[in-house]
């Protein structure tokens, strides 16, 4: 076989091998990451240790009555901060849990804040809140707030915040009611750390 044909053949083989290897490895990594993501979503979400908790970003959003609400208004309470939307099916599963938690724990220093990411605003939210008999405060979210919380894109995304305003657990996607309840119970039994409110941002 002439030399130049061998060279060309080797080059083609080399490129094909490289392409195949890259695609195979890429697919493997992508699949494993997807699998890990699903695992992370379904695994139990323990409450983070004190030292690993970061201060939940402050926000300023309006409720249905137009009143401006800050997260700082809830300092001293355990807060479930739920990013949701009316068009989000999994959010609709969790909302009755939060209604239940609000009723059950309200008097122990607990509150749920539902941050709706609906583009259509209160026009979409108000009838949904009535239909679902939502008994907790609902706020109209915006991209800025979503970005502050890590670019909330998958809904529901829910943060459980301790009495010191620190994020104790994060749930992305449909979670487990008992995981929420365990976290809330644990945090309600823990007094606020007076030093935490001023550490971090």
């Amino acid at each position, binding site marked *: 076989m002439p030399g130049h044909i061998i060279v060309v053949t080797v080059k083609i083989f080399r490129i094909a091998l*490289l392409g195949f*290897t*890259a*695609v195979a*490895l*890429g*697919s493997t*990594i*992508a*699949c494993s*990451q*997807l699998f890990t*993501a*699903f695992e992370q*979503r*379904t695994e139990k979400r323990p409450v983070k240790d004190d030292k690993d908790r970061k201060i939940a970003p402050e926000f300023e959003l309006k409720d249905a009555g137009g009143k401006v609400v800050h997260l700082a208004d809830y300092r001293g309470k355990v807060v479930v901060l739920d990013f949701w*939307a*009316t*068009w*989000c*099916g*999994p*959010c*609709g*599963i969790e909302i009755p849990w939060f209604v239940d938690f609000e009723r059950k724990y309200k008097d122990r220093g607990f509150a749920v804040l539902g941050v709706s*990411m609906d*583009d259509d605003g209160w026009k979409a939210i108000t009838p*949904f809140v009535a239909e679902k008999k939502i008994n907790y405060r609902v706020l109209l979210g915006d991209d800025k707030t979503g970005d502050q919380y890590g670019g909330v*894109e*998958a*809904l*529901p995304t829910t943060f459980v915040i301790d009495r010191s305003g620190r994020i104790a657990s994060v749930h*992305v*996607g*449909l979670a487990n009611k008992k995981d929420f309840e365990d976290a809330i119970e644990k945090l309600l039994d823990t007094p606020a750390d007076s030093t935490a409110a001023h550490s971090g941002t």
Partner: protein
Amino acid sequence: MPSKNFWILLPTALLLTAALSAQMAPTLTVAPIPTVKVKKGGSAVVSLKASLPAGYHANSNKPTEAYLIPLTLKWTGGPLRLETISYPKPTMEKYSFSEKPLSVVTGEFAIATTFKAPADAQSGPASQTGTLRYQACDNRACYPPKNVPVSVVVSVE
């Protein structure tokens, strides 16, 4: 002739791309639409081929629940007059977050639009433009609705 570094950087770039794509919200892709030829006064069918990544679904054009955002194609500009839009036949799928099966589209699907060219349409090529709106979910989470611009070159003869 690519350098040795090229052979190291290429697979690295490919691996990073694959890894990053696995962490992002699903993106519906629309295949380029071939040029459509139509005679003045005549009709033409434009087939828009779209696909969603495996594991994700979008609501069909007629979702089973009022609160769900339907798949919609809106043609907004161009020389042709819209006649009909035929959406893909949905499948009924049950998900962990729904009590009842939902009417959805998955994988690859096509939307056919029938246009009519007005008798007085200007001859020559022109763009017909529109927007495909969808809202996708997987089995545990949903992602904000997105608008994908679509465009086809039409040649009126």
